[in-house]
């Protein structure tokens, strides 16, 4: 299933790149990076790895919670 999905992404990516009129390397790189992100997420979800969602703003959240004691969830 994972392989199929990844293959699907590859096909879509290749197809889109093929349709571009010009391919400056910067654009291609950006495109491939974002596509790689999509593939990674798909693999995470489909293979049910329990990877926690990163919370970069946890500190701020704690601070807000303290300010709104009882107000948070």
């Amino acid at each position, binding site marked *: 299933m994972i392989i199929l999905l990844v293959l699907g992404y590859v096909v*879509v990516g290749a197809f889109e790149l093929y349709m571009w009129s010009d391919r400056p390397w910067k*654009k291609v790189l950006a495109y491939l990076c*974002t596509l790689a992100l999509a593939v990674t*997420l*798909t693999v995470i979800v489909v293979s049910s790895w329990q990877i926690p969602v990163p919370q970069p703003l946890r500190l*701020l*959240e704690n601070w807000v919670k303290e300010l709104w004691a009882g*107000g*948070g969830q």
Partner: protein
Amino acid sequence: MRELVPDLQSMALVVIFTLGDSFIMALGSRAGNDIWLAFLLAIVLAVPVIALYARMRSLMHGESLQEGLATIYGKWPSRAIALAYSFYAWRLGSYVLIDLTSFIESISLPTTPRAAVATAYTLLALWAAKEGVEVLARWSVVMIRGVYFILFVAFAMLVTEVDLAEFLPVLYDGFQPILLGTLQLLDVPFLETVVLFWVFDAFVKPDSPYKVFLPGFAIASVFMCLIASASLAVLGAEQYATNYFPVFVATSRIDVAAFLTRLESVVSISFGIGGFLKVAVCLLAASKALAIGLGFTDYRFLVTPVALSMIPAAQWLITDMMEAERIATKVVGSSEVFFQFVLPLILWITAEIRVAKGKKNSAST
């Protein structure tokens, strides 16, 4: 390539976006039966913040979003800001997507895989985002009539079921619940408008941003207030707060001559329309901001991968309906405060200073 959208069309986009998928959730449920007060307070509080977004856009008038940001904040800071908001829009889009799919799953299609529904909506959003904001705005103008017609008819038929006494006693538990309800409302549907900041390329006139954002927001929020209050008056505060989709349940009470019944499915259609537009706008904003952040002038080539990443992200960020509801009706979230209020405030102050300085410089030279 700058896309100019007539003000009224942009306004329709703002209205549907603000209404979005949220109106079907138990908005402001913390306020109990004082929900209308919470709504009024939230609207009053949200207007200055939205005016702030509009002010920033109007400072950039005459330039596209990318150029405007660069002239005010410089090249690298503007890119960093854009990347941050790209993340925010992407995450918001994923949340909306999961709301949409969980709603459909729990109401009518229990065995259809969530990913299938999400994929269908995302593909449409992908196409819409590639067409650009001009087409989306036109689309909203066509759809807004349908959405309003449906909701208006549905709620007109609910009038017989409405019991205004449900709003009594006013302020039984004091101000705290209202404040909590207000924060709920500010956080989730109201200040998400910040995403729209990244969608429009340019505006027709310098005061267009005000004309687009403020009336659009006002129409949608007042309408939402009416919907929520009517639902509460039908269901009672207890039922309103304890159902996932109180508006849906309220409209299921419609029974006109035992023939015009089961209108809740029709209401869920307008929910689907609003939800789709929100996904599409978030996708557009995320790709546009990402393109600006990476220094490209054209955003269209990034739409496909961003859209494809939203489908798994939706299921990664939230795995169940309870979580989806918690996020849609939570009191306040740190990242939301940061992106909706703190960062715009900082940006606005900086922008005012820079623009004032720039004017002084150009006046002296």
